């Protein structure tokens, strides 16, 4: 039981990085960034490959840079080349599949048997014990959240928020939307890359298909968190919602795994349904209330 809580919390923390990334792209910039799936695998592939060759810490940083590059690609396509934003993400994502295979030495998975990962560095020093994974992940994630919160109140952060919030005021506020969208997507994908990098070293493996559906799961967590936190009101709450939502999602996941309430093969379908319902809920509510009104009037 304790082990389950440990793993759930660890995964909850680490995957909240993807939710944070989607918070930046989907909520703040109002762009559906589909680079996420491929970028997550890219981070994983880079970090695991680097660890394989004995550079686990360096691998994490490389993965962040790789994520940034992927984000820049998508941003470049949509801000400079006029590619519609969703398509830009899909194009980058498709290209990344080959890049990811290349990074992994043209094999579909890499395993880190008896290799060093960042999670083992402290174990040698004899501190932490079984909670070490969680502690490391929590420190990194909370650090990212604090940095992001700080950043969103800086001039650049405010400009990025205004870009997504009101397109009409952008130029009149001396904001260059090309630049703010680029910075936003680069930061978002840096976080996604970091998430992949940490998960790869946690699981001691990288798999070319590990990213399938990550973007939908991330969105589900974001929406769960916002609902629970009654979010969208202030930035600190919204950022914390990413973490809370993820922990809740992972607990549900663990319960399903343990109790076999739903066959585990159905999980992605269920997740997709949750996301579809959650995003559709405002218009569903509206349609329903209209329906109820008309019914009442006809009686």
């Amino acid at each position, binding site marked *: 039981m304790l082990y389950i809580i440990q793993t759930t919390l660890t995964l909850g923390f680490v995957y909240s990085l993807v939710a944070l990334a989607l918070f930046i792209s989907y909520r703040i910039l109002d762009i559906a960034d589909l680079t996420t799936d491929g970028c997550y695998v890219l981070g994983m592939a880079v970090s695991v490959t680097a660890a394989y060759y004995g550079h686990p810490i360096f691998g994490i940083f490389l993965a962040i840079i790789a994520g940034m590059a992927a984000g820049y690609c998508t941003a470049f396509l949509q801000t400079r080349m006029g590619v519609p934003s969703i398509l830009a993400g899909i194009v980058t994502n498709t290209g990344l599949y080959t890049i990811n295979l290349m990074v992994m030495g043209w094999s579909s998975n890499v395993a880190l048997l008896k290799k060093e990962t960042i999670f083992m560095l402290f174990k040698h020093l004899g501190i932490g014990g079984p909670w070490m994974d969680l502690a490391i992940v929590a420190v990194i994630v909370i650090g990212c959240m604090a940095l992001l919160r*700080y*950043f969103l*109140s*800086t*001039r*650049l952060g*405010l*400009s990025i*928020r*205004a870009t997504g*919030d*009101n397109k*009409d*005021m*952008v*130029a*009149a*506020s*001396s*904001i*260059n*939307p090309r630049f703010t969208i680029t910075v936003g997507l680069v930061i978002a994908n840096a976080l996604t890359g970091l998430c992949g990098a940490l998960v790869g070293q946690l699981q001691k493996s990288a798999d070319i298909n590990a990213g399938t559906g990550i973007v939908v799961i991330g969105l589900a967590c974001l929406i769960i968190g916002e609902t629970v936190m009654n979010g*969208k*009101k*202030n930035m600190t709450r919204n950022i914390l919602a990413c973490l809370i939502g993820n922990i809740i999602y992972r607990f549900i996941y663990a319960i399903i795994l343990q109790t076999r309430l739903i066959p585990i093969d159905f999980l992605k379908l269920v997740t997709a349904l949750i996301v579809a319902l959650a995003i559709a809920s405002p218009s569903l509510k509206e349609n329903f209330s209209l329906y109820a009104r008309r019914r009442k009037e006809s009686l």
Partner: protein
Amino acid sequence: MLKLEKCTKIFEKGTINEKVALNQVDLKVNKGDFITLLGSNGAGKSTLFNAIAGTFLVDEGKILLDNENITYVADYKRAKVIGRMFQDPLKGTAPHMTIEENLALAYLRAGQKTASFSRISKKDEEYFREKLSMLNMGLEDRMHTLVGTLSGGQRQALTLLMATIVTPKLLLLDEHTAALDPQAAEKITALTKRIVEENEITCLMITHHMKQALSIGNRTLFMSNGRIVMDLNEEERKQISVNELLERFKESSKEEFDNDRMMLSE
């Protein structure tokens, strides 16, 4: 201060819908001028503002601001020194950001020395509070309220403050009170007058309100068919009555009017 030399803008050039929105416009705005701009719909008033603000580049001609050629400078760069307000109160502020954050954005972006990662300080906050209390709307006690929950008049007042919190070289007001109820419009007009006069901002204001056009500022321009057809200075404004202005308005827009009639009779 601001100089337009033979500026021309043609929309949908070469098509059947071709429209000469600005026709060889020459304009010299002196420092400290507060100009009201009149003209019927489609006369080119907003097009003139768009050309000055850089929303699009003019097809021909030259635009100089403080002797600096800004003809090819991008709109967001010009916005550092040119403040602008629109008719729609929703266009000037970010609804999901607080009053303080909106002001911070305006304050930080226009400051000359602020870096990308600069934030507002406690001192700046006090400054915002002081500026907000000047609006007399009680907004100074609601600094952490989301702007989306404010009324149109409050949002427009905030936009005015944002456009002038760092004194711009030039302020463009595009019928910024037209979408408000009469009381709010009066309040915003009074505020505009006060802020512009106190800071000696050079200002151009589009209005449809003839009386207002003659009473505010020191100079009145009249546009028709993409040209400035009348330029009244302070003395000339005193001598002209609203009726006379209306007459001339009709006269100069007769051509447009006839065009409209022609289209309708077809």
